[in-house]
């Protein structure tokens, strides 16, 4: 048996109110590629942040044993000194600087006060060659594509003399070809003796590169699977570990579901990335929603769900749109305008309530009326009393817990903020509600209440599109489910036929086919 390079023993990490990691164990042998898989929020990134010293020693329980020594990292520099280097999901490069400058950022080579640029660039070029990049290290990072930027990140890690390389979703922003190249690069590093941990959602990648697979679920290690058998570990096997949780009665039942005619239809909808117009973020998607129906869109992060919803909502995201939007059977030519979408009775409830959903510095009242000021004003003059009454009405209806509707939204809990966000869009009286991760980051009780609101909306004849990366939620709430992966719809199933396994299978099939 090979030498164990890293062992994380009984790691427990608690955030106020949440146990993010619960007695997690991880063993990584020298010279292997170890995959860490699990659903969103399972605790993979937290574990890696513990390992790299982002959460310093003392803020967690358990031991990190690296190279036979117990480590007590107080910051990221400590772990990097030992050769543990993490490459985060979001690229941390400064676009205006050159590749070389980026690679030695915070790690400049030279004397105490002066940087030795000749050495910097010649060393940088050496590492760039190792990752297979032909660019000179003197070009600006912004001039190269995302795939190459990812390689620069790896070269940067090599420059830090990495012995244990951690890659957090390295392929999430890469296309098929670049992803494959990156995985092959990992395999060639392995031959040279490098140890790597890869965190990824793409299970086909896991079985391609990994020697061992550790599954994390709800902050606990479930199992470690060996991938050395004759046959690679089947993806179904990994999925079973990932989603093996029982679904209890977390979703309110819907009675007398009455589904009416098709209200909204989207055909061959394609949207391009606003910054990289050659990249498709939504690719030839067709869907429809019936009156009174809750349609789920399931996909992993970055699948293009938010982009799809926002592009339907007055083209508020993306460029170079093509495709057709039909409302009540009639094609609609919508301008690039959110107000236009609202006029057509479409609402988009954003996934990021603090970032682009609510005005935190304003009151519940102001936020509630924001999308439909017309209804409480005449000739642009706001009827303050009417506005107050409306806010009170929704406060009662949605059980928003607050002493007064004059309370600032920033002072509310996440669940109550989410209710205010819903109140805003319910007051706008839409026919079609696009709900993007409506229960993200809120507690179970508040989730149940939000589910009840969704059911009430559907019962009132609204069309609800529920976007979520939580499988149980999609399964528990939807009448019909679309499955999205890598900008495309890869499956559609009725609630009765949908299971966690066959939804994941649909995603995997699409990954393999491409």
């Amino acid at each position: 048996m090979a030498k164990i390079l890293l062992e994380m023993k009984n790691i427990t990490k608690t955030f106020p109110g949440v146990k993010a990691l619960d007695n997690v164990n991880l063993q990584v042998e020298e010279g292997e590629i170890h995959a860490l898989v699990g659903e969103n929020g399972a605790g993979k990134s937290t574990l890696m942040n513990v390992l790299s010293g982002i959460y310093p020693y003392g803020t967690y329980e358990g031991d990190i044993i690296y190279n036979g020594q117990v480590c007590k990292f107080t910051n990221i520099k400590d772990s990097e000194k030992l050769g543990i280097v993490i490459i985060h999901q979001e690229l941390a490069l400064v676009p205006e600087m050159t590749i070389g400058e980026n690679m030695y950022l915070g790690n400049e080579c030279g004397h105490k006060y002066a940087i030795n640029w000749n050495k910097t660039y010649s060393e940088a070029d050496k590492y760039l060659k190792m990752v297979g990049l032909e660019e000179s290290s003197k070009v600006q990072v912004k001039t190269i594509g995302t795939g190459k930027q990812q390689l620069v990140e790896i070269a940067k890690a090599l420059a830090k003399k990495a012995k244990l390389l951690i890659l957090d979703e390295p392929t999430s922003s890469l296309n098929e070809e670049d992803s494959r190249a990156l995985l092959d690069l990992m395999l060639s590093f392995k031959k040279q003796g490098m140890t790597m941990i890869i965190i990824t959602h793409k299970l086909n990648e896991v079985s391609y590169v990994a020697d061992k697979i550790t599954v994390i679920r709800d902050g606990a290690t479930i199992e470690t699977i060996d991938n050395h058998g004759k046959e690679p570990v089947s993806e179904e096997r990994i999925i079973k570990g990932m989603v093996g949780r029982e679904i209890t009665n977390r979703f309110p039942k819907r009675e007398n579901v009455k589904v009416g005619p098709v209200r909204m239809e989207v055909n061959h909808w394609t949207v391009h990335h606003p910054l990289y117009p050659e990249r498709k973020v939504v690719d030839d998607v067709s869907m429809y929603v019936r009156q009174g129906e809750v349609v789920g869109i399931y996909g992993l992060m970055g699948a293009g769900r938010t982009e799809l919803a926002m592009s339907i909502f007055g083209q508020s995201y993306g460029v170079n749109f093509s495709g057709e939007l039909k409302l009540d059977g009639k094609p609609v030519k919508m301008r690039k305008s959110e107000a236009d979408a609202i006029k057509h009775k479409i609402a988009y409830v954003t996934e990021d309530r603090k970032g682009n959903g609510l005005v935190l510095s304003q009151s519940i009242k102001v936020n509630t009326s924001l999308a439909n000021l017309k209804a409480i004003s005449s000739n642009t003059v706001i009827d303050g009393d009417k506005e107050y009454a409306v806010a009170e009405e929704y406060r009662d209806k949605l059980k928003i817990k607050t002493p007064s509707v004059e309370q600032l939204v920033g002072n509310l809990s996440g669940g109550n903020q989410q209710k205010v966000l819903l109140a805003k869009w319910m007051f706008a009286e839409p026919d079609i509600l696009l709900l993007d991760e409506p229960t993200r980051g809120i507690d179970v009780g508040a989730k149940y209440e939000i589910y009840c609101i969704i059911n009430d909306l559907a019962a009132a004849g609204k069309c609800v599109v529920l976007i979520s990366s939580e499988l149980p939620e999609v399964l528990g709430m939807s009448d019909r489910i679309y499955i999205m992966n890598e900008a495309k719809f890869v499956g559609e199933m009725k609630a009765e036929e949908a299971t966690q396994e066959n939804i994941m299978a649909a995603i995997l099939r699409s990954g393999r086919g491409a």
Partner: protein
Amino acid sequence: MDKKQISAVLKKNAMLIVLVLVYLFFLILTKGGIFKPSSFTELINQNAYVYILGAGMLMCMLTGGNIDLSCGAFVCLLGAFGGVFMIVQGLGTGVSILLLMLIGIVYGVILGYLIAYVHIPPWIATLAGYLAFRGWGTSILSSNSKTGSLAPFPVDFQNIFYGRVFQTEKGVFNVPCFVFGLAMAALVALIVFMTRKNRLRKGYEADSMQAAAIKSGLGAAVIILVMTKLSFDGGIPTTLLWVAGIVLVYSFITSKTTIGRHFYVVGGNMEAARLSGVNTRRIMFLAYLNMAVLTAIATFTVIARSQSAYADVGKNFEMDAISACVVGGVSASGGAGSVLGMVIGATLIGVINLGMSLISLDANYQRVVKGFVLLAAVVFDILSKKREK
């Protein structure tokens, strides 16, 4: 009222209390000089531009802490144009006012377009005007006059922006002016009580009887005091009417209209506003168009008072307007602030200015004092907000 309520009221009106204290301070220091009728007229005339530009700056700042650096220099340029129109060319007052307003609108449209649709950061877009306009204005003045200033403006122009309504001799008690003051005070009280009654009738939360009485009483008392003073000093300055009109209009816009609401939410969270159907670009455009138009009106009051257009007119006006807003509690990051706050801030600065010149403090020290007052006000504001959390 328990202690908690009292401290809440104090906190809410902190700057108003500071204003009263500063006023009392100068009352003692000037041995009552600041309480003379002429001081009231002076306070209004001297600071008219701060209120007017402050209203415009408030709208800009609400959209996200954006400012207009060019307004002071634009006053100089408009003043020079005004001098050419009215004094050199001899155009009529009405025509000249229209032309100057038109120039203001043209500048506002260009500036608003650059900021809202070309996404030039406001401070850079207005820095250009700050640098260019005073030079341009000065060159117009010097090519039309040997002394570098144009004077005097026609009497009818001065009457509109620096005249008196119900004019009488100074020192003689002006009855119509006083009666007008009484009427205004009564109106304020009536509005406070009518609003309260209305809210109660519809079953909403309303001020207690006490609070309403205090509110209307204080408002009415201030109005009667000012108007009494003014009726001993020759009548109501027309500047006061301009300032009061603008303050009332902008109070209404910011607190009661949908467009005003849009300014607040754009500053509070631009993305959330956009995704709620607010045309955020149009709001940015309007902020700067509005600022340029108000700058034109401010120019009229300033050149009418000085009776001439000269190179230094409007110097540091942008800083005065920004100071008035900041002292008045307008958030430097946008989304919060009120016209009333700005008025209190402008008045505070005005009182300090007037008080210092009445005790003939050295001009350099005056600047030192103003600088520290501004800093103190902001520190005070931030600390009192922190404690709330």
